[in-house]
Structure formats: structure tokens, C-alpha cells
């Protein structure tokens, strides 16, 4: 108890309130538990948390594979300061090592933002003290800023002007966390480009990567605003068939996951077939089977191999059946033509 109260430091502290605050430390373990349960609870609709599926090994492997890795595209960034280029004379081995390290750095940059459900609102009242009503004209926020506590676990409570002591809601948490533990690039008031009237315009200019990158920096992945912005962007990409823009970026995986989760992979499959990426196409269908184990496709999938799997999906669950069928046909024809030429 003594140790934990020492760990708790407050942004504003009045000697009168120390006794009242002490009870917060008692409840710390409980509120941390309730916080973590709020994050990972299941959805009401189909009793599935997409993040549990998203972070599973097989899904991560598929998503990473279809993202691909183009080192030049990943490492292309506008730097903030000008540096002189360095020239080095390297042997063959050293060159390979340098290439390898560049590839690793690029892979690190492809870490996918978590695909999550919107977080549940916090309405936790710790105590009501009508005696304190009107103690000040503004609220007091008390924050645990001890070293090593992550933003998620940090204890933040608010004393309202009517004397209620409650846990800070998500909006307050985000702002206070940004004060004590700032994320570079995040701003206090969200940029206007995320407003609905500006969002559409920015997307129409094809600034998909910029929109998604900036949303990652500005919002937590379970923030309803993050989910709104990213899902709208994915929808826009799907509508305009601009999938290739996101290829070899960290957002290709979440986009594919979103489309698969919502049964909208037809256009993506067609695009992949047109680009000759049949392996990716099969992987997406495999992902569909993992995410929808009770669908017709999953039931009819036994001992089907390669292109047959895509065909099975096309027959059972495709919405744009005609278009998908046509492109599979064209792909097979071109394969046959190639084999004839070689023969």
C-alpha cells in the first residue's frame, strides 16, 4: 500500500484531498482489470473479436505474404533534414549484408496496425461526495505518471465540480496521455482532414497512404474515429479498385482483413488475377475460410487445391460472380496458351 501510494503522483494535489485520493489506490487493481476486459470483450453481433483472429499466427502469415515487400517503396520517405549522402566502397559480401539490413529495416516498417473493435465507453463512478460540490470552477484531473506505466494501464481519475470522483473517459485519457507521454506527430485537436466533409475530398485525391499513416499516428487503433477513417478509406479503395496503392505498405494487411471480414473480397480477387498474383488470390480465399468457418465455401472446400479453391469460392459466396468467373477463365486460357507455346 505504501509503495503504491508513493508510486502515485498527482498533477494537482491539495492536502485536504490526500485522504480521499488514497481510496483510489485501493481500487487500482480492480480498475486495471476492468479496463483490460473492456478492451478485449466480444462483439454483440456475431460474438467474435476480430483482433483475436487478426493476431493469430496463420492470419498474420497470410497477410504478411500478400502484402509483399518492395524495399524502395517502403524506404521512400521525406526526411525532415537534409543530409549529405555517404559513399562507401564495399565488397560483394558487404553489399549483400547491407542489402539484408535494408530489407530487415523495411520489414520492420511493415508492422500492421491492429484491427480492433471500437472501445467501450467508460462510465465508472468511484465515489460521490456532495460535500465537495462547488469546491472549484473547474475539474481536477489526477494522473499516475510513474515510470514504466503504459498509456493503456495508466490510472487517470477526474474530480468533477459537483464532487463526483470518476474515471476519466477515453477522450480525457487520450488528451492527458498526450500531455505526459506524447506521441510524436500526434496533435491535441485532431486534424480537420479526418472530418467527414474533408475526408471524401482527400480520398478523391488518392492520398490513401497519407490518410492511413496519419490516422495511425493520431488515433489509438481502437478509437472509434480511427475505425471510421480507416474503414471509409478501405471502402473507397474497394469502390475505385485502387488496391495496388497499398501493396507493400503496412495497411495492405488490415485492408484485406477488413474486406474479408465483411465479405467484400470479389473485386480484390479480380484485381489480383489481373495482375497475375494467383498465389495471393488463393491465400485470400484461405483467409476467407478461416474467418468464415461456417460459410458455404468453407463447407465445400475439402481436398480442393490451388485454383479450384478460388472457383469454389466463386460458385458459393461471390457477389460479383460473373466478373470473377470471367477473370478466372481468362487466367486459365492464358495459362493454356503459355503451355502450348512451350510445347
Amino acid at each position, binding site marked *: 500500500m505504501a509503495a503504491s501510494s508513493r508510486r502515485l503522483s498527482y498533477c494537482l494535489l491539495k492536502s485536504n484531498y490526500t485522504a480521499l485520493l488514497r481510496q483510489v489506490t485501493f481500487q487500482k487493481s480492480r480498475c486495471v482489470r476492468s479496463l483490460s476486459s473492456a478492451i478485449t470483450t466480444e462483439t454483440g453481433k456475431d460474438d467474435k473479436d476480430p483482433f483475436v483472429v487478426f493476431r493469430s499466427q496463420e492470419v498474420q502469415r497470410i497477410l504478411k505474404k500478400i502484402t509483399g515487400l518492395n524495399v524502395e517503396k517502403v524506404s521512400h520517405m521525406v526526411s525532415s533534414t*537534409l543530409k549529405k549522402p555517404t559513399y562507401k566502397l564495399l565488397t560483394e559480401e558487404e553489399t549483400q549484408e547491407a542489402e539484408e539490413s535494408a530489407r530487415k529495416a523495411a520489414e520492420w516498417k511493415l508492422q500492421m*496496425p491492429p484491427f480492433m473493435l471500437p472501445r467501450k465507453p467508460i462510465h465508472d463512478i468511484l465515489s460521490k461526495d456532495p460535500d465537495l460540490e462547488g469546491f472549484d470552477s473547474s475539474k481536477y484531473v489526477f494522473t499516475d505518471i510513474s515510470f514504466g506505466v503504459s498509456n*493503456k494501464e495508466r490510472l487517470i481519475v477526474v474530480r468533477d465540480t459537483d464532487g463526483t470522483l470518476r474515471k476519466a473517459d477515453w477522450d480525457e485519457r487520450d488528451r492527458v496521455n498526450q500531455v505526459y507521454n506524447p506521441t510524436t506527430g500526434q496533435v491535441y485537436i485532431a486534424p480537420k482532414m479526418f472530418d467527414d466533409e*474533408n475526408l471524401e475530398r482527400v480520398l478523391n485525391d488518392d492520398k490513401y497512404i497519407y*490518410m492511413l499513416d496519419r490516422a*495511425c499516428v493520431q488515433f489509438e*487503433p481502437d478509437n472509434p474515429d480511427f475505425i471510421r477513417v480507416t474503414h471509409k478509406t478501405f471502402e473507397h479503395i474497394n469502390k475505385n479498385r485502387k488496391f495496388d496503392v497499398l501493396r507493400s505498405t503496412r495497411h495492405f494487411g488490415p485492408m484485406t482483413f477488413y474486406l474479408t471480414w465483411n465479405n467484400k473480397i470479389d473485386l480484390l480477387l479480380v484485381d489480383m488475377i489481373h495482375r497475375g498474383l494467383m498465389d495471393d488470390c488463393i491465400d485470400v480465399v484461405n483467409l476467407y475460410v478461416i474467418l468464415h468457418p461456417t460459410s458455404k465455401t468453407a463447407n465445400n472446400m475439402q481436398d480442393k487445391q490451388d485454383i479450384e479453391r478460388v472457383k469454389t469460392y466463386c460458385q458459393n459466396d461471390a457477389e460479383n460472380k460473373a466478373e470473377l468467373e470471367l477473370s478466372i477463365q481468362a487466367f486459365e486460357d492464358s495459362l493454356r496458351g503459355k503451355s502450348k507455346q512451350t510445347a
Partner: protein
Amino acid sequence: MSVNQLKSLVLSLCKIPLFSSQMRLQPSYRVSRHFTQSVRRLQDAEGETEVPAEVNEKQKRFEVDYETSIQYLDSKAYKQCYGDDPVWKLYRRNFKGQLAPKTRKTCIRANKISTGNPCPVCRDDHLLVDYRNVKLLNQFISPHTGQVLDSMDTGVCQKQQKKLILEIFRARDYGYLEDSVPFRQYNYKDYY
């Protein structure tokens, strides 16, 4: 229907090419001398019968809205005047000695140009620094670093420089201009 929409409608109905036959909308006359003369020569060759405006006379500045300014940056008159260069490319400052002092506070006082060599933004009254006027703002951003160019490089007066910095910030806020975004690394364990 707004005034701007009405104006564009009338212009399209009359089939008058914007910025070529209207004296008031002719910005090139107020650009510094060599621009003015080259544009005038070009227009004489085309055989337009217009009385050139008196350059020396201190006129009230014509105030444009951002839509007109955006149209101007796409127009033929702009192309004739500046070519493909940024508007500050051919501007030269007048100063004594080797080292240039910092640029003047403002070129426009009481809505009139108060100097003989106004800065590249002030000299052309059809250039409006606005967050939606992306083509103009891009000319004042370094393509290598993404930072706003210094007024010592561009020669823009202090008033316009402050406005440029503000409007570029606003353009990035609204998503008209792209900015470099830092990489955000996720610790997946935070979200379990």
C-alpha cells in the same frame, strides 16, 4: 447561388476568356517591369487592341477570392508571365552592399503598393495566399525537406511570409498538402 458561381456562369456564357481581355483582371501589368514589358510585347504581337494601364499610377489593389486565384494559376496569362518557374524565381531584391538585410515588413500599406520593388507575392494581385491554393503554396515548400522556404531565399515580405507559414500549416491540417508522417510502432501486447 454564390457570387462566384454567378460570375463564372456569366463568363462562360459570354465566352470571354478569363484574364486576357479584361483590363482589371490583367495582373501582368502590376508584376515588375521586365515581366510587364515582355507580356505587353507578346500581346502586341497577338494584335489585341487594348490601352495599356498606367503602371506608375498607384491604383487601389484588386482583391481576388481564392477560386479566381486558383483559376489564374492554371491560366494562359500566368503561363506567359512565369512559365514553369515558381513565382519568386526571377525576382531580384534591391539592396546596397554584399549582404542582404531581411526582407521588408510589408509591401502594401493602406491598400496600395508602397514600394518600388514589391515582393513576388505582393506584386501580382492575383496571387492569393490561401490554404486551398495548393499550386501557389507548393512553390514555397522545399521538395527535399518539406519545410517552408526562408524569405531570404524567396524575397517574400515578412507579412506574406507569416501568412504563407500559417496557410501551409492550415493546408496540411485540411489535407490539401501532404506532410511527412512519423512512423508509429505498435506494441501488440498493449491491446491484448
